[in-house]
């Protein structure tokens, strides 16, 4: 099981190590600075952290020694905005997702909806213009912020040229040629926040997070603004699934070996955004969404007002060890697939992202 994990928060990056008595905070980097995303790396590869400095903008920091020391690297930068260009300003607001594919290319999803790539370990970045310049981008909307954002980058375990993106609110997009061409991949999702004639429009869907099963890459799970969807054909079609006590939420974690097993962190849809009955639970399906269990052991069951954001429920490579972090800085861990939870901390800053890995 993974014995190292990272907690990106509003006030710094916390390294966790699993000790005899459970997860402990082992190190803090960038204390007091907002860290929007972290990308751990295997030994010998460069780890990255994305900072969102309140006054001075987005920055990328890299570490070649597992997070012990950091150096500022290049920041993704939009090219000059043509006069009269429609849509949001061509200005980087946040790095919301980062992944390294098996060919070594690093991909970064951002607000306001630009995808960037780096082939040199973040010494330089290139805007993926084949997506940014598509006319459909101008139909994307903000979801949770004023501008659209790319929050999900689903790599393909056997094909480094294939990526599937999740965008709030711009649906799901796939490339099979390393970003040269893109196609919408959200057929079957529906959006009740749109007028009736646009509810099935793939390009305005709001998947809050999309995750792929590592061992069965045709299986994708999406926690969408309007519920839960699953695809068994690599996103060609999506089927809606109902869960109790709620199908609303932001996060989804998928078992790396068992494509029918996934976890969610439900909340009341959608104006109130609180745990149902102020009692926190994780829902788990092990049969592809036909049924769900509400897992509550060890989680607060009264007066709990924590929300679990999209990057804040994660599972390790065994499918047994999970971490869940909240908007109010609470962190819980499970070693038994979510059956029971232990409190790691009640006093962290607001949590933006969790990642396992050295």
């Amino acid at each position, binding site marked *: 099981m993974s014995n190292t994990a990272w907690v990106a928060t509003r006030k710094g990056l916390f390294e966790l190590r699993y000790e005899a008595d459970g997860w402990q905070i082992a190190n803090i980097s960038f204390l007091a600075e907002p860290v929007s995303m972290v990308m751990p790396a295997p030994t010998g590869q460069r780890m990255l952290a994305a900072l969102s400095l*309140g006054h*001075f903008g987005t920055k990328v920091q890299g570490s070649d020694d597992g997070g012990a020391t950091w150096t*500022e690297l290049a920041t993704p930068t939009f090219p000059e905005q043509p006069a009269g260009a429609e849509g949001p300003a*061509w200005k980087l607001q946040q790095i919301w997702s980062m992944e390294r594919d098996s060919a070594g290319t690093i991909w970064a999803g951002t607000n306001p909806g630009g995808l960037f790539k780096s082939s040199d370990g973040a010494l330089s970045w290139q805007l993926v213009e084949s997506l940014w310049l598509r006319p459909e981008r101008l139909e994307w909307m903000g979801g949770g912020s004023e501008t659209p954002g790319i929050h999900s980058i689903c790599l393909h375990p056997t094909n480094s040229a294939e990526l599937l993106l999740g965008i709030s609110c711009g649906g799901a997009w796939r490339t099979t040629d390393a970003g040269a061409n893109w196609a919408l991949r959200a057929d079957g999702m529906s959006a009740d926040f749109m007028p009736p004639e646009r509810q099935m429009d793939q390009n305005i869907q709001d998947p809050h997070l999309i995750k792929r099963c590592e061992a069965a890459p045709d299986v994708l799970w999406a926690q969408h603004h309007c519920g839960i969807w699953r695809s068994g054909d690599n996103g060609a079609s999506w089927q809606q699934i109902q869960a109790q006590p709620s199908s609303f939420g932001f996060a989804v974690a998928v078992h790396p070996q068992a494509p029918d097993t996934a976890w969610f962190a439900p909340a009341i849809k959608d104006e109130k955004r609180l745990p149902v009955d102020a009692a926190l639970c994780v829902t788990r399906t092990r049969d592809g969404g036909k049924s769900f269990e509400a897992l509550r052991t060890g989680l607060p069951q009264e007066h709990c007002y924590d929300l679990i954001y999209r990057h804040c429920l994660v599972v390790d490579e065994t499918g047994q060890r999970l971490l869940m972090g909240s908007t109010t800085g609470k962190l819980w861990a499970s070693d038994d697939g979510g059956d029971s939870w232990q409190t790691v901390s009640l006093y962290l800053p607001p949590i933006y992202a969790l990642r396992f890995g050295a």
Partner: protein
Amino acid sequence: MPVMVRIVFTPQLRRFTDTPELDTEAGTVREALEAAFALNPRLRGYVLDDQGHLRANVVIFIDGRRLRELETLSDALQPGSVVHVLQALSGG
């Protein structure tokens, strides 16, 4: 017409990157900033956004007067002008 001016950066920036305090010849605020960016190219992204505009939460004062041209940074400088690059107060 370039004149000798001084440019000073908020000490808050030193947490992140080098902030040269320098006397330079410049006719506009942008020219003065470019002289500082030549000494530390990384500094540009802390002060200006992708489009070369002043960041929304950074403020510049010229001899005590707030910068007016937030996108072009074309405000003219006088001999001996002092340009202060500061954090804008936003929130409490």
